[in-house]
């Protein structure tokens, strides 16, 4: 809504600073600091020093600093720095100095001074600024007009208003800006009549379109209820900008009569405008008045209007809107469905919950699926029995929605029910949906879910391999030692499919939040002793992920862990992972191992050499010069890249 207390920011800030200074004058400007800074300005010090002195005088300067700062207003390079100091000093001598400079300067420097006068709202400068309105430099005259607006008051307004017709086009635009500023100030002071006169003058003037829009907005707001006809006129416009300012102002202008007028206009508007008006009405925060008409629009409006109306009913609606929204949510119009569902998910009230639950109990088919989704989004725990029942529904849509809902809002108590469903899954899709539901719960409830899954992962009860694999997958988000132990046990399972999946799962076991570094040892064991080569590769990769990712490892332990896996690595692909790991470690030990790798396997020599060059050139890895020389010499001898060798030699030269 429109705020009558527009701050007129700079005026307020400077004014308050001046008041504060008056109250705390002795503390505001430490004399010694100020004296030193003034001396810098008056000395032959380089300009960078003077620039900084100006900045500090913004804090520590008082009226004693004003002459030294004002002397720089004609300096092309230091003028802006000087004004940084001057604008902040809460003393009237600054205004005197700026007015004095306004009479002497031209061009950009004059513009800067005028802008500072504007910021300080120096009413004594009005006559001087008025004289600048006819300056041949349009930048000067335009800034003068805007400054007059910022200063405001009767005299400024009297000067500015004639310029709306008399000034050159460029200055006219600034005069309009100044008039809008003056009008806004009048309005804040309660002088509505004067504000209206100025706003009207602007909106009727031959000034840029944006100024006209500002005039229209102000003219409506300043009239209050009497501005309704003008508001409605804008809302009927076929001009995008005019309609736009109407829509914006429709959200700002207060009053029940305004809301009523907008509702009346809704009945006269075409469908496209109706939709925009509904959005504006919704932003007026008056549900009792707006709800009936929006609800009717959601029920019987044109398709686009229904979408707009349904989409705002969460803010305006109550339980009375549930039937219309539920019907819309089950319709065939995808946009309407989404809008209605969004509103139903957010519509406040326990009576809304109760209404939806009652409908859910009696529902079937598509409506049931929609209501399950809504109950899930509203986190209705009371719907859990229906979810569980629907998880075995003959209708796949309802079944899937129910499983998703259980996963989304269920807790560990639902896991046994889901586990029971797992062996009965109708197909792979169902099994995946159940698995995801358990995984979702496991991600939130963690170890509490594990006891229900471990028997399935073990294959107790003669469940199928698919079910066992689903259980293994679901253990991952649960995490913790028991889940890990179960997956580790499955890596040596007699069933090859279960074993393969367990190894895959273990190789990507989470090694960040929630941290579970205990996966490292079983991975190392697998890397050493797995019978299938593919398992050994997966184990190596998983292990290296852990070495890279576990932030709790000390540098020594990390290196020891790399050393432990190195003998198991035979393929270049994994050696490259080791090289990346060592490079990330950036230590003397890492450099040493890289040197060994560079010599040991031509397939990875270039990668190792590249890493050596980048590490050996750094002084912060704790490597001795001897080790660095040895590593770089290896690069010189082994690398086939001339650039890498040259770089190594260049670094070698720098090592003494």
């Amino acid at each position, binding site marked *: 809504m429109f*705020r009558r207390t*527009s*701050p007129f*920011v700079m005026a307020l*800030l400077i004014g308050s600073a001046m008041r*504060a200074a008056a109250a705390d004058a002795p*503390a*505001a400007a430490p004399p010694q600091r100020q004296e030193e800074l003034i001396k810098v300005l008056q000395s032959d010090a380089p300009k960078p020093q003077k620039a*900084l002195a100006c*900045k*500090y005088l*913004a*804090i520590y300067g008082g009226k004693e600093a004003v002459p030294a700062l004002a002397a720089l207003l004609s300096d092309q*390079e230091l*003028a802006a*720095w000087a*004004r940084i100091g001057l*604008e*902040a*000093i*809460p003393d009237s001598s600054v205004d005197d100095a700026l007015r004095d400079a306004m009479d002497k300067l031209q061009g950009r420097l004059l*513009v*800067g001074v005028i*802008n*500072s006068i504007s910021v300080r709202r120096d009413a004594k400068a009005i006559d001087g600024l008025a004289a600048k309105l006819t300056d041949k430099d349009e*930048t000067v005259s335009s*800034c003068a007009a805007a400054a007059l607006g910022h200063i405001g008051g009767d005299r400024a307004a009297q000067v500015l208003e004639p310029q709306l017709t008399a000034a050159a086009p460029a200055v006219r635009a600034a005069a309009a800006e100044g008039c809008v500023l003056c009008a*806004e100030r009048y309005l804040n002071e309660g002088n509505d009549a004067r504000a209206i006169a100025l706003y009207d003058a602007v909106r009727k003037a031959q000034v840029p*379109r*944006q100024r006209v*829009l*500002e005039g229209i*907005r102000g003219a409506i707001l300043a009239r209050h209820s009497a501005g309704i006809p003008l508001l409605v006129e804008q809302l009927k416009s*076929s*001009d*995008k*900008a005019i*309609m*736009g300012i109407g*829509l914006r102002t429709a*959200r700002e202008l207060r009053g029940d009569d305004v809301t009523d007028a907008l509702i009346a206009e809704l009945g006269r508007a075409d469908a*496209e405008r109706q939709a925009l008006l509904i*959005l504006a009405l*919704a932003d007026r925060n008056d549900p009792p008045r707006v709800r009936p008409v929006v609800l009717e629009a959601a029920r019987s409006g044109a398709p*686009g209007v229904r*979408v707009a109306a349904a*989409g*705002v009913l969460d803010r305006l609606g109550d339980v009375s809107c549930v039937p219309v929204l539920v019907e819309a949510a089950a319709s065939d119009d995808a*946009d309407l469905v989404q809008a209605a569902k969004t509103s139903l998910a*957010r519509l*406040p009230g326990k009576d809304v919950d109760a209404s939806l639950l009652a409908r859910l109990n009696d529902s079937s088919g598509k409506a049931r699926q929609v209501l399950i989704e809504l109950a899930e*989004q509203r*986190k209705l725990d009371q719907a859990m029995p229906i979810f569980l029942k629907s998880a075995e529904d003959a209708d796949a849509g309802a079944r899937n929605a129910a499983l998703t809902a259980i996963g*989304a*809002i269920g807790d560990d108590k639902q896991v046994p029910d889901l586990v029971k469903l797992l062996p009965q899954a109708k197909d792979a899709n169902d099994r995946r949906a159940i698995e995801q539901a358990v995984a*979702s719960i496991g*991600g*939130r409830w*963690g170890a509490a879910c594990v006891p229900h899954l471990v028997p399935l992962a073990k294959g107790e009860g003669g469940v199928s391999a698919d079910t066992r694999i689903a259980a293994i997958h679901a253990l991952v988000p649960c995490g913790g030692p028991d889940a890990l132990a179960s997956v580790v046990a499955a890596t040596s399972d007699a069933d090859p499919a279960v074993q393969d999946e367990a190894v895959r799962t273990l190789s990507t076991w989470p090694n960040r*939040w929630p941290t579970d570094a205990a996966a490292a040892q079983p991975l190392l064991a697998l890397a050493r002793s797995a019978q299938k080569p593919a398992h050994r590769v997966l184990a190596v990769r998983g292990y290296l992920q852990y070495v890279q990712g576990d932030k709790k490892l000390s540098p020594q332990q990390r290196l020891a862990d790399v050393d432990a896996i190195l003998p198991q690595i035979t393929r270049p692909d994994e050696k490259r992972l080791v090289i990346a790991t060592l490079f990330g470690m950036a230590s003397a030990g890492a450099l040493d191992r890289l040197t060994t790798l560079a010599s040991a396997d031509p397939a990875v020599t270039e990668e190792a050499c590249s890493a050596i060059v980048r590490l050996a050139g750094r002084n912060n890895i704790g490597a001795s010069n001897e080790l660095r020389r040895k590593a770089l010499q290896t690069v010189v001898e082994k690398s086939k890249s001339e650039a890498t060798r040259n770089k190594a030699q260049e670094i070698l030269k720098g090592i003494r």
Partner: protein
Amino acid sequence: MRRQMARVSRRGLLKSAAGIGAAAALGAPMFVPGRVLGKDGAVPTGERITLGAIGIGNRGSYVLRCFLEENDVQCLAVCDVNGQHRDRAKAAVDARYGNQDCATYRDLREMLARSDLDAVIVATGPNWNGTAACQAARAGKDIYCEKPCTKNIAQSLMLAEVMRRTGRVFQAGTQRRSLPHFIYAVELARTGKLGKLQTLHAQPAGLATKTSGWEKPDPEPAKEDFDWDIYLGPAAWRPFNKGLTNAFEFEKGGGLVGGGCLEWGSHCVDLCQWANDADGTAPIEYEPVGNQLHATYANGVKLVLRDDGWLPLGSCPVRFEGDRGWVETADDGDVAASPAKLLSGRRQKIGGYPANFHVRNFLDCVKTRAQPRANADAACWAHIACHAANISLFLKRKVRFDPAKHEFINDDEANRLRSEALREPWRW
């Protein structure tokens, strides 16, 4: 030139309506999953939102790409002081539309003078963002503005005031307001699921304030290659220096107290403001404590800016603590919470802080004239909180702030740091 009212598609209305609808819970529009406005169908050229892009370096290029992905956008012009940036952006835009029509500008004033642009991206860097946004608003453009949007407290207030006065749509580039995991966490805080809110934690990515200065001169390039004068813009003059040409860092915050918590704070503090239903205010007390900055809102809720002790959930983390639970999230898209029940019902995960949803929200609001999620008022107060924190860090002491009066209480030093003069000829 009068242009006919742009048609608003049903899908646009759906998104707008649904997005705004979440205001019931959060007091601000919220992310709604689903297809994107205009994505699924061709939008006639005459009904597209016409766009210009100001500041098209790394970040600006990314944001521009997000806009180019939207079928109801037609980018007509790009503007940058760096000739290479201009050429690269023009090539991207022309490739998107299969023509050579994208105009290039070195001076934003020339581009803003075009009457055929509905909206602009402002990604000029912290020195220029606020000033360029105000210039664009006065020129009748809607603005998607990268963060940090302002250099000081005064500019933050001025930005909000200009947007209100001009009636322009403004979206700050704090795109985490449009990402589901941050929204989820904020919603837990705002709907009482955490109990009475007690402490909010935000990562500032550094708390060292910087004072911008004057480096040794380097040979100044030709204006067509790099226009130093326009690059400096509202910043006080200094000679060309190559090291200062990284607009992402130049004059961040400006004045004596740049840097500090502005980098991530404009995101993370913004999210804390939102979680505390404080989009129209800022903390009233700020104090450096060890390597942290502690602030307190008028409602007693604490705000802690800290760089360590976060769960490994990615960059830009926030944590909200109430007397019945806590939630923490960051850019990975994961959410951690206690009790675990708080995570019930959370399904969607999007990591990597994409701006697409935020851009879409902006475009929808351009059409409906509703307020976007990170509108000027919300951005104003989030930035004020960051600037006030920086002032406390710069002064190395507690400061007390009065959000109603926009001033520090009995503190002339701090009050003088609220604003800084703009170099001629630029003004607010």
